[in-house]
């Protein structure tokens, strides 16, 4: 604080308490509280892509009390005290207060905090005071480093490496012992026990001890160190191929699969449990406004639905259509807009008046947006909403009524109008959407403050406005405030609101604008004529088209919302010409076509949180000047908060009740159709009430201890006695190919759980839609309020299931106590389990875990609804640790991050909800349907390839090293190697390293098509068939056999001859090379020219090396001088004969085994391999046959099982049982909050029914 001015400093020198001044596009060096922004509203925009990857702008606010300052904060005058919580890693929480010198406290929240790592955008300069610096910053605390995931296969391989170490030690011990014993026989023979330089001879015991270490050096190749390097290389290759798979390419996002974790590709082939998020993962998370219910009337928006259906084809035609209309309309519209623009010096070209007057549909103009490349945020599907004709008709009919004197007698339509108006206003403003103009990306539409604003005149205008509005608000209803004459008040109000909004205060311009009133009025009427005409004949076109000509500037609004459904609602509102124009912390501007631009003074925002499940805005209504609370939230929550007794009399109250019932009916209907429902409600408050609440709220805000609870209470005080306006149904469409993918994954034996935060009905519907649940599945619903009840219910269901599934053999296994994942049931009965968040909490408790898992193991699909992110991760953790299975979690949002991190493989869907999931994931895909290929094809390949390669590596090392070991028996265990050291080193490093890597990258046991067509093949990976402990030992045994052959065939050949050591080693090496390479050929299921090239290259390089070494090395590399050995051997026919014989004998058993396996007991994969050879026609035929035989198998086994075990009981008639169970489920679905007893009762009932039927 001593410095008078800011000085440049390194990041590392920043300390707590420093004042920092940053300019636009600078990265924030420490967590700091924002004290000043050049933005007149006290806003600072930051981009948090460095933290969470989201590239949309976020607003941060200057601490209250500082925002009003015009000049920059002077650090020297700063005398306040900041108190905040100790550093923590929660990015979304910051609590603290700022105490001024006069003991006045101002609460600090995350809105005031600039986090390290973010970038300042769109703000010229900001000043802040550092509260956390260095490692205490939230960004650093969050940086726990990447979680190192080790694949199951690698863990398996690691244990086997340990076995190799044990083997090595045994072999070395043998060598040491042998040498000791051997030497003790010849202790005094100086031939063998060559004395030390000083003439001493060492004792056999000591020599044996030394020999142990010599042997370790000699045989250490047994431990496949190179294996790890090769695994990494192979994984890189696999990832390369995954990433370059063109099937993963998504045209829309221009993205393909991203492999972020480099070392767990093979886990993709072993997944047993899949945990999926619903929103954005199974569904597109492109919220499409589908239906709404206002004041008890349901508006279907059928055209919208139709449009969605045919969207893809229609796109191009639409464009043409727009273009032609463009031309026709521009002639009339353009001049007008120009005239308007001259009148209003609307900064940034967003000329409001012109927008609303000259081009009637200007509010929407949605079709402009698709041209932007911001596909993620404003794809045409979301932004285009075709208004429902009925509602539109109501709109257009109603609009003029607003300007006519109100007839008190026709109350019904009036009320409805009010509801509709309020409804759309709520849609438009009850959110946290940031408005930006697409043509100026990252530039918030804001009215730039004109430099010379005479405050005085502004005040005057405000006063005037207030007077007027007060006068108007005296009349009971909103509309009644309108004066009889149609044009004038409209324009008047508009002008006023415009002034207050624009802060356009220069009197001259005011006059100009007032002068423009009359032409405006006239133009306005023509507009209405327009709109009616348009909506009459082409109601659906006007929304999209008319706005464009002449007014591209206005229509070019981009909405950036934190959640896509908010944006969907705003776009929907825009379709009804209720356009959100701008949003600042103080006010929201809405362009309501018929009412003109309205400016709402924003009093307060209670942001959305998952506990309250709602958000509210408190605004001062510009027309009525009342304090109005608009609340938007989950239906269950809102319905409870509705006012029981309305003060406005019995009829109104009755109407409310009717509306409520009707809306509830609509809501249920929406939910059944899988729509996401939201309720919109409002509440009018008196100023005193509001002031009272505000005071309490401030107290809550400034407190540090249990602030959350206080804030929650405070919100509860505000959000009650609401008046229901209506409800919206937003469709979250299933992604393309989701049902097929889920079906395939099911067939692959993967258990799929859906974990979602959505409500039960929506979740179940989506589950049906995506074939997670089959129509004839039995549904069990766990929805209880207490732990005991949960326990009882689970028991009941379990009994039920067991009774029916007695036949299945895994039951005994389960009862036996070992919590093994049962074999996926192919036999008839399928069951689905639905569990709600609350019950999940009980089920996850220690005592019920086992039971819960047992229960879920019986079910094909489990749906967890209303699950919190933490619960999601807990479920994954539970399943992963207790069932010891491979889990995969897939999600797209920040709420899935914990789940993604916990699972063995986390997959992020790069969708709409930011990048957090992708950042936390191991693989990022763009669509759910890619998952099936990722798992079924690449997972299978990667797993098979890598496991075979690892086994091959073990084999290779053991086979080769054992040659040395066997030789020890003939050299007195003295540690002699019969091979030149260089060959020994290069054998692993060069001559036999490339083929297994190529094998690991390119091996293809079954073609991709077959794998996709026969998901059953995936099960081999789940059972780790390619690499079982037994396989390892068999491989090792084979290696031992081969090395024995490879040693003893040359041994017997050269026994007693005059061959020297290194000449003896040469045929051993050569034969070993051929054996090892041809072994690979036998194991390979497909050989491309690359394989051939590498294998031939390896052999050639070996010979080249041996020949070159033999030719040039005269005295080098003592004592194992290979001079001319290879050359001599190449001229010796015996050498060739030995090599051929050795190779044949060594490979014969494995070859025979493979042949017998291929013809006598082929595995599924081997059988599937035949498919690749068939022509397409034969192939489909064979597929049919395969399926048929599979079904036959299933059926026969089913019958066998049943007949074997169910001696007394007849098999139940399937459909009736299902029916009974279905009735239970449907009951549960409709009643929502079903108590335990009822469910249990129902279950009993259904059971009795079932048994009767049986």
């Amino acid at each position, binding site marked *: 604080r001593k410095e008078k001015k800011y000085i440049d400093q390194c990041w590392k020198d920043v300390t707590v308490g420093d004042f920092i001044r940053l300019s636009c596009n600078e990265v924030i060096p420490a967590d700091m509280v924002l004290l000043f922004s050049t933005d007149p509203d006290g806003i600072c925009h930051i981009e948090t892509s460095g933290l969470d990857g989201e590239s949309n702008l976020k607003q941060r606010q200057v601490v209250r009390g500082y925002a009003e300052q015009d000049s920059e904060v002077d650090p020297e005058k700063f005398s306040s005290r900041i108190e905040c919580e100790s550093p923590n890693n929660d990015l979304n929480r910051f609590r603290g207060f700022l105490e001024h010198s006069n003991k006045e406290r101002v609460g600090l929240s995350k809105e005031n905090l600039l986090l390290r790592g973010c970038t300042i955008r769109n703000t010229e300069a900001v000043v802040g005071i550092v509260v956390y610096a260095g490692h205490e910053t939230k960004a650093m605390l969050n940086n726990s480093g990447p979680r190192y995931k080790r694949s199951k296969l690698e863990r398996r391989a690691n244990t086997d490496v340990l076995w190799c170490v044990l083997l090595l030690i045994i072999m070395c011990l043998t060598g040491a012992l042998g040498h000791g014993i051997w030497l003790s026989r*010849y202790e*005094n*023979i100086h*031939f*063998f026990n*060559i004395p030390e330089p000083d003439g001493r001879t060492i004792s056999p015991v000591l020599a044996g001890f030394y020999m142990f270490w*010599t042997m370790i050096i000699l045989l250490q190749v047994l431990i496949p160190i190179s294996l790890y390097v090769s695994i990494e290389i192979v994984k890189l290759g696999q990832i390369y*191929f995954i990433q*370059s798979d063109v099937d*993963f*390419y998504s045209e829309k996002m*221009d993205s393909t699969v991203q492999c972020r974790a480099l070392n767990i590709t093979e886990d993709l082939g072993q997944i047993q449990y899949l945990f999926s998020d619903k929103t954005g993962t199974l569904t597109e998370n492109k919220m499409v406004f589908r239906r709404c219910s206002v004041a008890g009337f349901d508006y279907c928006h059928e055209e919208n639905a139709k449009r969605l259906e045919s969207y893809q084809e229609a796109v191009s035609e639409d464009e043409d259509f727009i273009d032609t209309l463009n031309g026709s309309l521009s002639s009339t519209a353009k001049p007008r807009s120009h005239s308007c*623009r001259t009148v209003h010096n*609307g*900064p*940034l*070209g967003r000329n409001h008046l012109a927008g609303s007057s000259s081009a009637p549909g200007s509010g929407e103009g949605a079709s402009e947006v698709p041209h*932007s*490349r911001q596909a993620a945020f404003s794809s045409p599907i979301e932004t285009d909403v075709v208004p429902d004709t009925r509602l539109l008709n109501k709109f257009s009919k109603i609009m003029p009524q607003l300007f006519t004197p109100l007839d008190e007698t026709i109350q019904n339509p009036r009320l409805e109008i009010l509801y509709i108006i309020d409804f759309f206003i709520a849609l438009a403003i009850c959110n946290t959407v940031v408005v930006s103009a*697409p*043509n100026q990306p*990252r530039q918030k539409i804001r009215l730039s403050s004109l430099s010379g604003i005479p405050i005085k005149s502004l005040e005057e205008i405000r006063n005037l406005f207030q007077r007027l509005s007060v006068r108007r608000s005296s009349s009971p209803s909103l509309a009644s405030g309108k004066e009889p004459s149609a044009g004038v008040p409209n324009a008047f109000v508009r002008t006023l609101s415009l002034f207050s909004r624009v802060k356009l205060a220069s009197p001259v311009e005011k006059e100009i604008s007032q002068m423009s009133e009359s032409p405006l009025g006239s133009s306005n009427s023509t507009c209405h004529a327009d709109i009616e005409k348009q909506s009459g004949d082409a109601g659906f076109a006007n929304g999209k088209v008319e706005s464009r000509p002449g007014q591209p500037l206005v229509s070019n609004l981009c909405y950036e919302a934190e959640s896509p459904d908010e944006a969907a609602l705003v776009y929907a509102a825009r379709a009804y010409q209720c356009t959100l124009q701008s949003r600042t912390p103080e006010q929201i501007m809405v362009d309501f076509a018929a009412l003109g631009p309205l400016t709402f003074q924003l009093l307060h925002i209670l942001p959305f949180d998952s506990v309250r499940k709602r958000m509210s805005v408190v605004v001062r209504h510009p027309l009525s000047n009342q304090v109005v609370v608009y609340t938007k939230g989950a239906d269950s929550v809102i319905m409870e908060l509705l006012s029981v007794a309305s003060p406005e009399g019995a009829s109104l109250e009755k109407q409310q009740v009717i509306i409520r019932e009707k809306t509830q009916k609509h809501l249920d209907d929406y939910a059944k159709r899988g729509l996401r429902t939201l309720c919109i409600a409002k509440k009018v408050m008196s100023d005193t009430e509001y002031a009272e609440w505000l005071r309490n709220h401030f107290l809550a805000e400034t407190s540090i201890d249990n602030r959350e609870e206080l804030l929650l209470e405070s919100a509860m005080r505000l959000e009650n006695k609401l008046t229901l306006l209506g409800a919206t149904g937003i469709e979250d469409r299933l992604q393309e190919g989701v049902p097929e993918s889920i079906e395939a994954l099911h067939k692959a034996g993967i258990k799929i759980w859906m974990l979602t935060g959505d409500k039960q009905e929506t979740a179940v519907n989506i589950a049906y839609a995506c074939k997670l649940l089959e129509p004839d599945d039995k549904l069990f619903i766990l929805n209880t309020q207490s732990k005991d009840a949960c326990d009882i219910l689970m028991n009941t269901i379990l009994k039920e299931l067991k009774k029916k599934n007695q036949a299945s053999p895994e039951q005994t296994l389960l009862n036996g106590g070992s919590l093994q994942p049962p074999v996926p049931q192919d036999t008839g009965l399928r069951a689905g389990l639905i569990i709600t968040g609350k019950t999940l909490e009980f089920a996850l408790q220690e005592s019920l875990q086992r039971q819960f898992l047992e229960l879920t193991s019986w079910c094909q699909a489990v749906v967890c609804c209303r699950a919190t992110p933490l619960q999601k991760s807990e479920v994954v953790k539970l399943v992963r640790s207790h069932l010891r299975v491979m889990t995969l979690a897939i999600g797209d949002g920040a709420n899935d991050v914990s789940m993604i991190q916990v699972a063995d493989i986390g997959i992020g869907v790069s969708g709409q909800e930011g990048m957090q999931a992708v950042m936390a994931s191991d693989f990022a895909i763009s669509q759910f349907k890619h998952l099936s290929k990722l798992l079924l094809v690449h997972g299978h390949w990667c797993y098979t390839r890598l496991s075979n390669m690892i086994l091959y590596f073990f084999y290779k090392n053991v086979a080769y090293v054992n040659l040395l070991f066997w030789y020890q028996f*003939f050299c007195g265990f*003295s*540690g*002699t190697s*019969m091979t030149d050291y260089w060959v020994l080193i290069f054998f692993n490093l060069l001559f036999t390293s490339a083929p297994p890597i190529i094998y690991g990258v390119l091996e293809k046991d079954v073609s991709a098509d077959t794998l996709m067509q026969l998901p059953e093949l995936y099960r081999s990976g789940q059972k780790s068939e390619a690499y079982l402990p037994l396989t390892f030992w068999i491989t090792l045994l084979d290696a031992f056999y081969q090395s024995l052959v490879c040693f003893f065939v040359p*041994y*017997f*050949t*050269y*026994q007693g001859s*005059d061959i020297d*050591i290194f000449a*003896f080693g040469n045929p051993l090496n050569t034969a070993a090379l051929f054996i090892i390479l041809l072994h690979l050929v*036998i194991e390979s299921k*497909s*050989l*491309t*020219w*690359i394989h051939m090239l590498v294998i031939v290259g390896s052999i050639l390089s070996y010979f080249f090396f041996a020949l070159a070494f033999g030719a040039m090395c005269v*005295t080098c590399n*003592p*004592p194992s*001088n290979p001079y001319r050995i290879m050359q001599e051997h190449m001229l*010796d026919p015996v050498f060739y004969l030995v090599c051929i*014989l050795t190779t*044949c004998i060594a490979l014969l058993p494995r*070859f025979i085994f*493979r*042949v*017998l*396996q291929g*013809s006598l007991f*082929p595995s*599924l994969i081997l059988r599937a*391999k*035949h*498919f690749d050879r068939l022509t397409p026609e034969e192939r489909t035929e064979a597929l049919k046959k*395969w399926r048929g035989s599979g079904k036959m198998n299933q059926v026969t086994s089913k019958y066998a099982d049943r007949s074997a075990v169910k001696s007394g009981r007849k098999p139940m008639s399937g459909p009736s049982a299902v029916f009974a169970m279905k009735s239970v489920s449907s009951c549960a679905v409709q009643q929502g909050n079903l108590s335990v007893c009822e469910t249990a009762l129902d279950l009993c009932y259904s059971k009795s029914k079932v048994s009767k039927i049986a």
Partner: protein
Amino acid sequence: MAMNYSVKDEVDGGPPCAPGGTAKTRRPDNTAFKQQRLPAWQPILTAGTVLPTFFIIGLIFIPIGIGIFVTSNNIREIEIDYTGTEPSSPCNKCLSPAVTPCICTINFTLEESFEGNVFMYYGLSNFYQNHRRYVKSRDDSQLNGDSNALLNPSKECEPYRRNEDKPIAPCGAIANSMFNDTLELFLVGNDTYLTPIPLKKKGIAWWTDKNVKFRNPPGGENLEERFKGTTKPVNWLKPVYMLDSDLDNNGFINEDFIVWMRTAALPTFRKLYRLIERNSDLHPTLPAGRYYLNITYNYPVHSFDGRKRMILSTISWMGGKNPFLGIAYIAVGSISFLLGVVLLVINHKYRNSSNTADITI
């Protein structure tokens, strides 16, 4: 006004809502390699497909085996053990170190005459010439005639590197333990007239060893001068420059020495000692009959239970006598033939099912 226009220009100029998108897409190339669709040979190992392989192996291996076997059987070979551990052996007397020099004579009979060139080997058993520390106890540079190494041999030669402050030439345990028996062969004629068999000393080592790898140190005419400043290995009776009278076979390039320096791979081995060249096509090199083997017995092997042998052998294209290779070839050939038959049966039984996918598990 002006502001308005400038804004408008900006609007028109800038691309709408585009945060600098690149025209290049990230679509992966659709090539056979990248999409893993390379044409591949996909062998399916079933009885039917591999049948020919087995028969072919059988058909090739059996004749080869027979050929080798016959060749091996045609090789004449005789081994004479002259260790002298048995009391009856004439060389028994030489076991005691007191008798020096000890000369013993063993007589043996060749039942059949040896045709062609005959190789004379000495064979040692239980002699671990492949012991690690023994094997490395040599200095190739010294043997290659390097004068530095001659006077300052490699450390590997310890403890046979220096003797009485003089460098040993040739140094090391291998050289030190060089075989030093002398073998002479006499054909016993009709009247106990002994005909000495001419034994050729040269041509028993690899040509490259003798001419490239092993070289006498440079220097004066006299070999003794060249080896000046060195001393003989401890166990040797005479220095290295007195191994032979022939200048071309003396010093480091003495072929007996070179042969010895090529350490044997296995504890029982033979090393070429002399060549008995065929002198005419008409007479066998070694006619059947009685022979005397005259041994100057120097080399002690009984301390480590070793054996010494003298071997006479004719050779063929495949080297010495070795029945193993031929038998192994015949056996493998037969086995693979047999397997072929078994697979034929299997193939017959499962033929229908192996080609289609619908066999039940």
